[in-house]
């Protein structure tokens, strides 16, 4: 495979596409599939055949606006339809080249205007199981450029220049991480893609893997070249069977086209990737626990140092990055680090994919430049809170994050701004809450999650999360005292300061942030035995349970 061949494939794919007058893309991400979008695709194909229309009906990945699924995109008119069912197929076909169908209008005013799609640039436009369609949109240009025009060092320089930071939540400068691993001497190095995405309400990585898996593979290959690795692993949680399937096909196709394997693209560089499945443990999203899992051991973290960059998989220098981080790599190499760093804020460059969920009209995935405000994301793009209810808080960062109230709606999204406000970027989950949400209950929900997902290795997390959960339950039930609240606060401090890994260290965050902004709700439960949101069933009198 060389540049000329790549171009030929791209041109052939475009030619193939242009044979058809119309392209009808049907979203077959997990969300729309659950609404039988596969039947929609079948029906449209059938109707198109019956009507004799020259259109290519394509299965694609996620189109973003899950709330309006199943989604269909008609090209070249760029017409989008929402809530499409098999019965609508005839109308969809009939509308080709004519007036759009009003009743299937997904009402996207304000939805795309603020977004900037880099990670999601192909999602919804290509068939994830057709590598040539990826190539037609510029796929693998970056890998070829890196292998034939750049040295490993210059690749790392571009990544550093871009300002790209880890998208899994840590926000660690990607270029610095790559540089560290590259500098370590080691006969065998590994690249690992962390696809364990465990935060409740987060499905960005799932979507990328389902919709544009080649993007991640290309990113990993570029990384392997830069750091000197010959083997890679994609660790995907087993709860993402569609992602695993799409990845399996994508890897086979990448190998067949010569982007993986020995002597890639006629260079000295060899690299291949295997998939490893998770087994239902949130803690395996933590890099050292993930490594232990790949090694066949129980997924428990190890104390760091040594860091995986120096001693990781089987003791070898290992680069671990998140799915979304890898998804940004090819564009950075293609367009340059400077291009990437021209977007975003001073210390948070580029874009971020957010999973908008909860009490919001437009549930789904959005990708926006860093620096956009929460208000813009939630109200302009997200459509605001439905059913006439009032916005109360937005939760970011999953079980490690926090809840931000109305006063922070104009916060400009960046790693640092979110941390100083008492939350964090996390992997991109963004859960909107309205006045029917009880913030104590929310804190309790996340603590229960941490409690059941704790690996059990260290006592503060293993036992501390149980104690904190029980205190929060007591508060919700209206049976707590101020002494309980003091105990809860103290446990938050100790568990946060003494836990072995990030799970325990950040488990107190939802409690701390709700205490910071919604203390009055805690006090109402304690002093008045009343839940202001009307969610908790507070017992009016303290109950002494008898035998």
């Amino acid at each position, binding site marked *: 495979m060389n540049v000329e061949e790549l171009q030929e494939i791209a041109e052939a794919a475009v030619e193939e596409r242009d044979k058809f007058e119309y392209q009808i893309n049907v979203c077959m991400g997990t969300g729309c599939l659950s609404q039988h979008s596969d039947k929609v695709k079948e029906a449209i194909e059938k109707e198109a055949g019956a009507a004799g229309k020259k259109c290519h009906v394509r299965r694609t990945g996620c189109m973003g606006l899950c709330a309006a699924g199943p989604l269909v995109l008609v090209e070249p008119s760029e017409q989008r339809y929402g809530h499409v069912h098999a019965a609508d197929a005839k109308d969809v076909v009939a509308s080709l080249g004519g007036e759009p169908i009003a009743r299937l209008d997904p009402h996207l005013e304000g939805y795309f205007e603020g977004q900037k799609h880099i990670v999601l640039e192909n999602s919804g436009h290509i068939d994830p199981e057709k590598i040539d369609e990826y190539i037609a949109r510029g796929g693998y240009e970056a890998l070829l450029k890196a292998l034939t025009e750049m040295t490993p060092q210059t690749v790392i320089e571009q990544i550093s220049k871009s300002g790209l930071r880890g998208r899994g939540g840590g926000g660690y400068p990607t270029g610095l991480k790559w540089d560290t691993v590259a500098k370590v001497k080691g006969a065998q190095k590994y690249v690992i893609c962390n696809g364990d995405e465990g935060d409740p309400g987060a499905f960005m990585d799932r979507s990328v893997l389902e919709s544009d898996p080649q993007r991640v593979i290309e990113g990993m290959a570029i990384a392997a070249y830069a750091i000197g690795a010959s083997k890679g692993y994609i660790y995907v949680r087993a709860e993402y069977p569609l992602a695993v399937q799409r990845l399996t096909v994508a890897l086979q196709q990448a190998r067949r086209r010569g982007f993986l394997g020995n002597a890639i693209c006629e260079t000295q560089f060899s690299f291949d990737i295997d998939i490893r499945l998770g087994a239902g443990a949130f803690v395996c999203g933590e890099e050292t626990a993930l490594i232990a899992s790949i090694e066949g051991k129980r997924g428990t973290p190890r104390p760091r140092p040594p860091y995986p960059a120096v001693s990781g998989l089987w003791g070898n220098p290992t680069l671990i990055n998140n799915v979304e981080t890898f998804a940004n790599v090819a564009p950075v190499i293609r367009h340059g680090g400077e291009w990437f760093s021209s977007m975003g804020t001073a210390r948070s460059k580029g874009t971020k994919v957010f999973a908008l969920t909860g009490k919001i009209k437009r549930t789904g995935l959005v990708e926006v430049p860093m620096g956009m405000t929460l208000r813009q994301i939630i109200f302009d793009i997200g459509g605001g809170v439905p059913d006439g209810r009032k916005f109360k808080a937005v939760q970011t960062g999953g079980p490690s994050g926090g809840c931000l109230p109305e006063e922070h709606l104009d916060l400009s999204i960046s790693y640092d701004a979110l941390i100083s406000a008492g939350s964090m970027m996390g992997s991109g989950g963004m859960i909107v809450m309205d006045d029917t949400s009880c913030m104590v209950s929310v804190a309790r929900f996340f603590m229960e999650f941490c409690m059941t997902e704790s690996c059990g290795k260290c006592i503060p997390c293993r036992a501390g999360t149980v104690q904190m959960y029980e205190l929060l339950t007591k508060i919700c039930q209206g049976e707590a005292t101020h002494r309980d609240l003091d105990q809860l606060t103290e446990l938050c401090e100790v568990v946060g300061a003494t836990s072995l890994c990030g799970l325990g260290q950040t488990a107190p965050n939802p409690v701390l942030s709700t205490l910071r902004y919604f203390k009055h709700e805690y006090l109402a439960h304690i002093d008045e035995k009343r839940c202001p949101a009307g969610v908790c069933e507070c017992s009016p009198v303290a109950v*002494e*349970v*008898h*035998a």
Partner: protein
Amino acid sequence: MSDLKTLATVWLDGCSGCHMSLLDMDERLIELSSQFCLVYSPLVDRKTFPDLVDVTLVEGAVASEDDLKKIRKIREHTRILVSLGDCALTGNVSAMRNACGPQPVFVRVYEQNADLQKQVPTVGVPPLLARVRPVHEVVPVDVFVPGCPPSADTIYQVLSQLLAGQVPTLGGVAHFG
């Protein structure tokens, strides 16, 4: 007698071993007795808890409704409350039934192991709490004296310090068991 400190002792759900240890101070009891007056105790003949006591030593865990009522009343009428021994401090043996609840215990004691009239008594006995609790989970406690029982030496040290107007801390001095 007015400058004598008033001392009370009480046992809740305990084995009275801590009281035995207290008595084990032997002649030191006589030495201390010049400084206190024992105004309520299973060891003396007094039926009602006085209005105000300077120091109360509490042995045993809170295991029945009766214990609960008693300890609340005692706390109200005591200046310095001392949890004496592991049962009061941690629940200890008394709390070993917490893992399964009182019902299996009733069945084993009053039905399986009884020879005559197998039945769980309910008349004239205080209902058991579902959960045995250490004293400080129910009322605030001022001094904690670990041990099962705390040694006579330890109790002597505690009483001497209390009588001298100090509040003793046993951390690093005595341990559970």
